[in-house]
């Protein structure tokens, strides 16, 4: 067992890193769905846009911070825009809203194509986080460790906000009963727009952070979206704990699968999802009432 762990150490860590990136997307997806019953199919496109922003601004690994800021601003703008775009369709139900986000995804991904073309691009990590480090007898890139740390910090922050702050309490209440929260005098529209924007910002943020480890290219949006959807389905739509656990799980299966069983890795992923949905239709941590 230990031997196997040692042999696959790099892949295991990669799995955690991928998982953290997926988490940045899954948090937003899960919250937006939990709060608004909206499946934001444009989430992958936003992540991809974040990566393209990184490609555009990052020069040999420098100016990462401006790229992050730009992504945050872009994400906030897009998020607010999407929240308002979806609003007229609230009465028509979740399917129409999901279809709208699909249309938005179409437009966004083709905008990216128009601006940046079909080439593959790579992004250098910031020099301060470049290079590798010795870890338990293996060399591992520092940047990926940084991603892992960042992911954990993000998870902790989200947990704190949701569980320990008044805002978090309001969000949790709104997930359960929006009308009641509104009746308490809280501006629910503002809350919804805010949460939507926050979720989209996280996706854009994740895109920038992930750019050095992924190939920035067209098609990235669908790939990431599908994985993120897997995460929230397995973890349970609306559950943040589920998003975290699901992300780690999917990240592992993806990384280990690619390394050990490249032919069958997708089978594992989607097969696992089908099985889990069979057993627990609302995901591992999901709310059965949905």
């Amino acid at each position, binding site marked *: 067992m230990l031997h196997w762990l040692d042999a696959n150490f790099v892949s295991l860590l990669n799995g955690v890193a991928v998982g953290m990136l997926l988490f940045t997307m899954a948090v937003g997806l899960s919250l937006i769905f939990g709060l608004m019953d909206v499946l934001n199919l444009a989430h992958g496109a936003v992540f991809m846009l974040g990566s393209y922003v990184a490609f555009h601004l990052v020069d040999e690994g420098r100016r990462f911070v401006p790229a992050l800021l730009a992504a945050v601003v872009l994400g906030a703008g897009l998020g607010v825009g999407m929240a308002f775009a979806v609003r007229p369709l609230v009465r028509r139900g*979740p*399917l*129409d809203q999901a*279809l*709208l986000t699909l249309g938005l995804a179409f437009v966004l991904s083709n905008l990216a194509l128009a601006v940046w073309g079909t080439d593959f691009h790579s992004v250098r990590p910031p020099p301060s986080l470049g290079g590798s480090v010795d870890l338990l007898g293996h060399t591992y890139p520092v940047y990926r460790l940084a991603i892992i740390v960042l992911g954990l910090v993000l998870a902790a922050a989200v947990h704190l906000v949701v569980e320990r702050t008044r805002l978090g309490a309001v969000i949790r209440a709104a997930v359960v009963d929006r009308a009641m929260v509104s009746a308490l005098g809280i501006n629910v529209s503002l809350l919804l727009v805010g949460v939507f924007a926050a979720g989209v910002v996280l996706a854009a943020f994740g895109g920038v952070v992930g750019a050095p480890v992924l190939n920035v290219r067209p098609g990235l949006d669908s790939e990431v979206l599908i994985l993120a959807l897997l995460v929230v389905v397995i973890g349970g739509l609306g559950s943040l704990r589920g998003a975290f656990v699901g992300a780690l799980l999917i990240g592992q299966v993806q990384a280990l699968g690619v390394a050990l069983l490249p032919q069958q890795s997708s089978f594992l992923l*989607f097969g696992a999802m089908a099985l889990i*949905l069979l057993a627990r239709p609302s995901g591992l941590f999901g709310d059965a009432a949905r």
Partner: protein
Amino acid sequence: MSTPESRQAPVSLAEGPRPSPAAGSTPLGERLAWPLRAATVALLVAAPFLLGDFRLLLLGDILVYGLLAASLDLLVGYTGLPSLGHAAFFGVGGYVAALVAKTTVNGPVQLAVAVAAAALVALGTGWLAVRTRGVYLLMLTLAFAQLLYSLALTWTPVTGGANGLPVPRVSLWPGDDGSLLASDQALYWYVLAGFLLGYLVLRLVVGSPFGRALAGMRENEARMRSLGYSVVGCKLAAFCIAGAVGGLAGALFVQHQLFISPSNISFELSAVSLVVVVIGGVRTLYGPVLGAAVFVLVREELSSVLADHWQLGLGALFILVVYLLPGGVAGLGRRLEGWRPSGRPATEPDP
């Protein structure tokens, strides 16, 4: 007080004799239906004499994608099962036809096996899918399609992997050495025949008692259960029919384009199919075919002008359509009633 049903001439495939509120007042849509259909089929048959080779090829593409979109309409529009993975059946049909082509180039045989395979896949995935609803259904169908996509991409010895599979031209019946369908025109007619067959099946299903049951399920599932209908069984049947026709479309595609690759079973295709169905008109069967026509034509005509940006226009159009549809995508069917010249309310949605 009883309605003079005996004085009715059955006008459409969808429903039986309708009570006529006044003598000689039939909806405009119905009066135009048969002549329009006849004219369309005639035009399609005459196409090889009217269009050049390249345009004929495009028309073939339109028919194939149109059939796929129409089969998706059965699922989304008539049964109320939104699917983001319909390309799976297209791909299964196509790949199976391509594989059968290694043994025999007999076209109809390939089609039969492909359709059976697609129906089986629909049965297997539908069994789970029809037990979910809404966004979960969207994601489940997406997941199954992705599973098959990755299979197509990685199972290189069988599927050719990312490079795909080239396919020999089909022959029509045993003994035919391929000369019957050697010309582009003949091949087009073959594809047209396949399209008409698939479309006819969809039409018949929608107008049958089973189709009526699907309408009931769409409107009120709880009621259907209390009437003794097995809702899960009905949905599964619809899923399988839609999958089988989608597989037919995929097989025809392969026989027309002589090539298949993973892009024919991709999420992009599933998404575009859904977009096309919505733009063309949910729950009409012919609307999605028109939508597919728009898609193919725009892709061709505009790609020279706008390079890869034509999809932007499609996306924008899609968004517009989603906003502007009264009652939304789900409620569209109720609006599609035959307009009566006398101004009275119509009886049923037009087929």
